[in-house]
């Protein structure tokens, strides 16, 4: 092949590769410049020249680091272009493909990738927006995990503990519930459309509105307590009203207390999810399950009825069909729902922000809420660097979980 390319084409390829390299490199450097980690405030932001002089003062290491990355990326791009250049069809494909995604790519690079680079750099600094970021190395990362040894800094560790319980309880229940609802609506029944609408209603309602409604339900004098009192009153049991969203007693703590034991405050990690936290879990399941129901419903309607008929002829009963046929066929969707559910639960924020603000006693504290409070200095100084570090730790955790789930659930799905 190489030998058949005429020299002018090779030179053209080299030229194109060089131009590509330049474009990618300059683009990345401009993006880095726009997102350079300088201090904010009117004095810096008032004009382009004041911003640039601040960049010169503080952001040179950042620009150098991005520059190295830009060299590598530019090199890769140049090699790609050089390889496809001699073949006219491949070349046109490549150029038109990148041409079409260029507008979106540019916006993503500036407003997402650039900001991620900025945040990553900031996570190694002490940064309060209005003064020059100071390099502190890994201090923010070690501080995040200081809670393991120092109970007075347990906020982040406790928030991780909380969301792990949240994922562990919410994801299986909402997935199972979604499959159940979807199976129900997929069966031939009367008023199917009506039930579809009713079941899906919680998901189309804003989660803010639902949270507000649930806050009323959960009041000590609210409907849920009223309901329990009435139901249990029939059996003759006196129901003690619970302040659902304000009760920090943990699940295991309740069990241990019922058997006459107790768990001290120092061993908060043995207490399990608190009543307040479980109340929020219930609300979340109620809101999210219907969304996933819709996905399962779509997948169920994709399953060919001939398979069901064949199984019936072979003598399978309904349960056998469900366990051995339907569920395996749903496996790719189950993976999707579990992964989406896990990511969503690890990032839970709005319910906490509206209903509990991380209380009672930090039992509904979540990483994202903690990032929010630290980044805006709700409890003291603005700690953008620390908040950025927490965000990256959370991102790594989510990545690891998703990876593990793919490894275990995706195995075998390609068969179908």
């Amino acid at each position: 092949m190489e030998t058949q390319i005429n020299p002018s084409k090779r030179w053209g390829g080299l030229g194109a590769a060089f131009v590509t390299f330049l474009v990618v490199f300059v683009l990345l450097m401009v993006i880095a410049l726009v997102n350079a980690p300088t201090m904010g405030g009117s004095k810096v932001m008032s004009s382009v020249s004041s911003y640039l002089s601040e960049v010169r003062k503080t952001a040179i290491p950042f620009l150098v680091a991005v520059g190295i990355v830009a060299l590598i990326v530019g090199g890769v791009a140049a090699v790609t272009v050089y390889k496809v250049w001699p073949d006219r069809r491949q070349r046109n494909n490549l150029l038109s493909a990148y041409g079409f995604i260029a507008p979106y790519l540019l916006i993503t690079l500036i407003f997402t990738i650039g900001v991620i680079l900025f945040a990553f750099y900031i996570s190694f600094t002490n940064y309060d927006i209005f003064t020059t970021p100071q390099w502190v190395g890994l201090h923010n990362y070690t501080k995040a995990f200081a809670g393991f040894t120092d109970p007075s800094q347990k906020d982040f560790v406790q928030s991780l503990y909380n969301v792990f319980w949240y994922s562990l309880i919410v994801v299986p229940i909402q997935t199972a519930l979604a499959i159940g609802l979807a199976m129900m609506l997929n069966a031939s029944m009367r008023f199917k459309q009506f039930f579809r609408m009713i079941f899906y209603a919680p998901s189309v309602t804003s989660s803010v509105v639902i949270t507000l409604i649930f806050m009323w339900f959960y009041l000590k004098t609210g409907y849920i307590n009223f309901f329990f009192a009435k139901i249990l009153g029939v059996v003759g049991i006196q129901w003690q009203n619970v302040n659902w969203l304000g009760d920090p007693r943990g699940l295991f703590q309740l069990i241990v207390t019922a058997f006459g034991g107790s768990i001290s405050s120092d061993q908060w990690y043995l207490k399990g999810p608190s009543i307040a936290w479980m109340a929020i879990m219930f609300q979340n399941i109620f809101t999210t399950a219907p969304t996933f129901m819709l996905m399962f419903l779509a997948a169920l309607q994709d399953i060919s009825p001939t398979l069901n008929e064949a199984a019936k002829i072979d003598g399978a009963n309904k349960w056998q069909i469900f366990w051995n046929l339907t569920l395996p066929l749903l496996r790719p969707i189950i993976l999707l729902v579990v992964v989406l559910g896990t990511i969503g639960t690890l990032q839970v924020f709005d319910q906490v922000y509206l209903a509990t603000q991380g209380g009672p006693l930090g039992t509904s504290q979540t990483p994202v809420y903690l990032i929010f409070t630290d980044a805006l200095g709700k409890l003291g100084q603005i700690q953008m660097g620390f908040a950025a570090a927490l965000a990256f730790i959370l991102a790594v955790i989510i990545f690891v979980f998703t990876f593990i789930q793919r490894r275990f659930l995706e195995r075998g799905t390609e068969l179908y």
Partner: protein
Amino acid sequence: LSFAEGNTISFLIFISGTHNKGYLLNQFIMFNFGGDEMKNKNSIIFSMLLIFAMLISACSQATTGAPTTAAQTTQPSPTSASSSATSAPSAAGACPLKVEGEAKITFSGWGDATEQKIYRDSIDRFIQVCPGISVDYIPIPDKFQDKMIAQMAGGTAPDVFYVDAQLMSAFASTGQLLALDDYMKQAGVSANDFIPALMTEFQLNGKTYGLPKDWGTLGLIYLPEAFQQAGISEPTADWTWDDMRTAAKAIAAKGKYSGFCMGTDEARFAPFVFSNGGSYTSTDYKTATLDTPEVKTEAQFVADMFKEKSLVRPADIGASWCGEAIGKQLVGMTTEGGWMVNFMAQTYPNVQYKAVQIPKGPKTRADYIFTNALGVNASTKYPIASAALAIYITGEANQADIVKTGFAYSTHPDQAKLISNPIDQAISAGGLLPDSKVQYWGVNTGKVESSVSKALERVFLGDQTVDEAFKQAQQEVTTALSGQ
């Protein structure tokens, strides 16, 4: 942050159609798509390009500053000046400073319609005494602090704005607030003119970064009905916390009302602590003083009251806060502030309630003061005019007018007599006590407050003893104050 902020705003202006460009766009779309469908895809591409160009120009215009917003917000001011003719003639005092000619400044604060009206009137009075200055009042009723931080970071913050504990710790030490001392000297205003406790929140390293605009404090609010029922005499201004406890026990024993309402909230606990000579931190906000007998004795006091059921939390009796518990007539007494007057008048107008000043403790009588200030943006174009506005609004003449509305207390000690409502008179007495402290614990205010509240919560829950809970709180606050 700022860029996104500016973006959204200009986009909102853009789509709302108030912007003339929005109108143009509508016309264009009508012309292009509403007409015959013969226009081929070239025109669609062209229109997309045009939309894009307009978006960009809208963005660039918003970042250059005021023009777009000014056009919307300046207009109401003159009209409201003429409509609020009742307050306009009373504009008293002279312009505090010799201001720049033709200064244009912006002013932001939170607040509902009542507060906005009061500040519009104040601005009208200011414009009368300092002619030639135009003031854009931009109220931000929700998420004020978040918005201020974002605007400040992007260099688009208003010239004068409300400053609370959170903004004070974010802005003062980082040089975003203008030190007002020189301007105060020129205007003949001194920090001593204000109630001394208020100033402690807004001074840092001997410089003044904000002038207190109003304040509130706690008083003992009670239902006379509950006292009649229990057959005991009503509270008086010389009551002690022990008197309160005895009465609470008597009221709770009758069964119809609960005794005393208090949430697990540091703000309601503070008057107990101060009255025993205690405090949450040292006066320089560098050392935690929670694990001390002064604090723990008082924590034990409220914990014992809770145990003997003379003290209830609002959630225990089905109220979201203690003021509502008074309104619903569930409890005999609580400690609340001047906000009760409006709340009761609007929500529970038929409930009879009264107030006396905060009870006395073993060592002294002291109250907890909540206040906010007006601060000036350090990078304002018109520092003199901005400082003049802050000084005028918080000055004696204007504060006297605000007090008359019954909305807030004057920040000047000699104007306490202007307060007319008897409930407000009783409550506000606590603010002028020499040992009263303001709700501010240095840059880590939020952390200190949440640690104390959590300690109380653990005690009330029976999770920890007072000793254990406040030892833990002491550790938490020490860690926070060490700057780690």
